């Protein structure tokens, strides 16, 4: 009962205190695309994402009702950091939906223009407002309405102590006439937050901390530790600030609930902060973990290396291997193990690829089989006038075909894409992405593009753990449709072990060789040289891979290699031949370039 009364009281008081307009609320999600485009159009950086920002604690005076409700301690303010443009998740501060929407656009414009981010809060925002209104008359008109609404929303001058009233007066003047106020009069409390302006810069300490963050992992970890402490210290101070409310505690059960609520909120916040810190720590821990796993793995496997062991293995799926030292193809050297990606759940195309997909689909529509008009045919459906006229003009009788014919031009193609999933693809390639992420995106876009052309294609991945365990993953077989199941498998790929390229190519040759098509393309996607945790290294691996490719060509396949290894020109010409490989200089370009490359290869 007491609790229910408490909840009711909390709701009532909050409703009374909140000067918000839920009926006119605009959510960020409904305008984010428009705001992001406006941001870019007005000169904002293309690489910056638009995200909902957390609330900012402002420390300004609140009305007694707000204090009673324990609300409005924080305000939704906009700001920029290196990663994103942060806008409030919901804006419902003005009574008209149009004004709330305009505020989003105004903030996006302010962030895009912001000519003097180095200035203090007051002058910086005036300079930005001035720049926006001067350059964009439409926004200037909107700004006048917004400034009027913002002033109407702000605390009344008569209810403020004299020092704060002077401060408030200055802010109102700066809002009405940007550029007119040079400095903020001093006051005991900071001014009421200005929703039309960008958030005041963080304190010097916080900035220093932020600057320290992107350093080495160990330092980052300790920085996170200190960050956690700083936050805890911050929160520990809080109950003192709320001393006023605590007075209610002995008298009223309602305010006890209220107090408990405050406490609870604090607790939650702290938990969230801790969770965030833990998240970051998790990332680091995992990263370090994986690194050490990689090292361990390499070490243990290196130790397990059986020097010169070339006794034949028995069982099914055995493949030969070329030994360049003896110039012999040794039979039954490698065992192919089909490793199903069992736990892969069907999934849709990742959102960040949607735009590329659209573009590729448009481009690849051109490769679709078309009805082609063949001219000067000995027989056909219509008369071809041109050769006839030539015939009459020259009277030589050289022309013989006087008909045009329509024929379906078939693309008779089968393509097998073989992706290297060895542990080296764990390496970072910049822009916060690993080789494996680039390979995954490439597989996705490649499949999207090919499903438009109706060319038959299959996707496989491989890695190896010595010759007895060449692991082969079927991502999409030739007879499978490309759908969410295949996408799920692509999504599920991850780096593991080594690169026994020769065996993988021989197995892929086997699969592709069974396809009946006029042209058969074997596309290899890799990040480095062939190698495995035994004698399969250096010259041995290179020569074996080369031999496997020669065999593939003899079966009428066309191998082609796409690599992100910048040193690949040292060995790939030998393995693949001069014109059958390409080195992608910027791995991030691979997803977009691979399908285009395919189009060029198969035209």
């Amino acid at each position, binding site marked *: 009962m007491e609790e229910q009364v408490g909840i009711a009281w909390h709701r009532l008081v909050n409703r009374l205190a909140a000067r918000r307009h839920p009926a006119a609320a605009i959510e960020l999600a409904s305008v984010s695309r428009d705001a992001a485009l*406006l941001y870019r*159009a007005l000169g904002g950086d293309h690489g910056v994402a638009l995200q909902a920002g957390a609330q900012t604690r402002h420390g300004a005076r609140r009305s007694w009702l707000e204090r009673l409700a324990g609300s409005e301690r924080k305000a939704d303010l906009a700001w920029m950091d290196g990663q994103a443009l942060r806008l409030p998740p919901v804006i419902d501060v003005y009574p008209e939906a149009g004004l709330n929407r305009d505020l989003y656009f105004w903030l996006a*414009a302010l962030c895009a223009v912001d000519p003097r981010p180095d200035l203090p809060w007051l002058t910086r925002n005036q300079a930005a407002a001035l720049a926006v209104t001067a350059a*964009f*008359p*439409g926004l200037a*008109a*909107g700004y006048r309405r917004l400034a009027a609404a913002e002033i109407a929303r702000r605390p009344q001058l008569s209810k403020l102590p004299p020092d704060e009233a002077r401060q408030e007066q200055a802010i109102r003047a700066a809002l009405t006439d940007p550029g007119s106020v040079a400095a903020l009069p001093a006051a005991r409390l900071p001014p009421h937050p200005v929703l039309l302006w960008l958030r005041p810069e963080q304190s010097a300490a916080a900035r220093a901390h932020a600057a320290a963050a992107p350093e080495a992992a160990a330092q980052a970890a300790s920085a996170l530790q200190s960050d956690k402490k700083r936050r805890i210290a911050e929160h520990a101070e809080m109950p003192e600030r709320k001393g006023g409310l605590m007075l209610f505690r002995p008298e009223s059960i309602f305010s006890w609930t209220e107090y408990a609520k405050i406490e609870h909120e604090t607790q939650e916040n702290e938990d969230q902060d801790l969770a965030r810190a833990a998240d970051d720590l998790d990332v680091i821990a995992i990263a370090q973990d994986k690194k050490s796993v990689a090292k361990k793995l390499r070490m243990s496997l290196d130790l397990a290396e059986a020097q010169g062991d070339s006794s034949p293995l028995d069982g099914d799926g055995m493949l030969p291997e070329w030994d360049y030292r003896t110039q012999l193809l040794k039979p039954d050297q490698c065992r192919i193990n089909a490793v199903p990606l069992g736990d892969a759940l069907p999934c849709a195309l990742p959102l960040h690829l949607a735009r590329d997909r659209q573009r590729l689909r448009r481009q690849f529509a051109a490769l679709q089989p078309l009805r082609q008009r063949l001219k000067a045919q000995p027989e056909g459906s219509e008369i071809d006038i041109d050769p006839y006229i030539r015939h*009459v*003009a020259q009277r030589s009788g050289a022309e013989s075909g006087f008909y045009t014919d329509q024929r379906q031009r078939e693309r008779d193609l089968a393509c097998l894409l073989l992706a290297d999933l060895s542990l080296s693809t764990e390496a970072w390639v910049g822009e916060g992405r690993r080789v494996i992420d680039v390979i995954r995106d490439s597989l996705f876009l490649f499949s999207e593009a090919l499903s438009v052309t109706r060319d038959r294609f299959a996707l496989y991945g491989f890695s190896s753990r010595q010759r007895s365990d060449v692991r082969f993953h079927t991502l999409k077989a030739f007879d499978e449709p490309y759908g969410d199941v295949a996408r799920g498998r692509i999504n599920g790929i991850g780096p593991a072990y080594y690169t026994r390229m020769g065996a993988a190519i021989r197995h892929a040759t086997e699969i592709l060789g069974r396809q009946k098509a006029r042209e058969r393309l074997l596309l290899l996607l890799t990040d480095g040289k062939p190698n495995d945790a035994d004698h399969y290294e250096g010259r041995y691996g290179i020569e074996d891979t080369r031999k496997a490719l020669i065999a593939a060509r003899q079966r009428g396949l066309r191998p082609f290699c796409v690599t992100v290894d910048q040193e690949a020109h040292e060995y790939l010409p030998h393995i693949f031949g001069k014109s059958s490989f390409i080195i992608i200089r910027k791995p991030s370009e691979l997803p977009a370039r691979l399908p285009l490359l395919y189009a060029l290869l198969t035209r």
Partner: protein
Amino acid sequence: MTVTSIARALRVPKLIPPYTATGDEIAVFELAHRNRLPVLIKGPTGCGKTRFVEHMAARLGLPLYTVSCHDDLSAADLVGRHLIDASGTYWTDGPLTQAVRHGGICYLDEVVEARKDTTVVLHALSDDRRILPIDRTGEILEAPPEFMLVVSYNPGYQHLLKGLKPSTRQRFVSLAFGFPEAASEAEIVATESGIDPATAKRLVTLANALRSTADHDLEEAPGTRLIVDAAKLIAGGCDPQVACRAAIVECLSDEPEISRALMVVVAAIFGH
């Protein structure tokens, strides 16, 4: 398709079409003509490539033969073909042959769109031989000093499988066109459409804002031509936002969400 329908031979016009230079392109073009060098112009859609060639043809007092290339344009469309009438067959020159025979500028717009066999015809004309062999009639035409070959293409809007071969590209003096500076573009918009300078300036601000979203949100940046079209609508009494939607926004995107977002940018400049 008849030859005359694709060729638009402008006899020397009395009026020189206005063109505002953005660099040294006029001097380079004149020098290229004097030295009998072919010229390649590349630049985005609507940046004034065609207008520049028209301007230069008028300035040099040469007839202009413009051919808009498309993917069905063959060498015969350029060189000429035999036609039939009551008395038998007769030969008709294509626009390229006409330009070579009579002297003048032959301008092939969007040359990468044309079929591959057309570029072969251009090879002998674009190096120092300057000849046009017509195998159908057995003629070999030598180009007079007044003849000049000009081709243009849009590097941003190329078909996946098409591009200008390096061997073709290296035969030309190349001029790269971009969009003019804001001030001079506003002037162009004002003169072309008769709109007041303040609105012209606003339109150019809009164009540059939209251009900075190209590649990310738009496939291609809006050209000066679109801006001039919008300005003409506004000059004719259309509401600026309506004019911008009709002449710019809907021309740039077919996706409703993008159009809506583009209209936000329009409102940022023309809102009231």
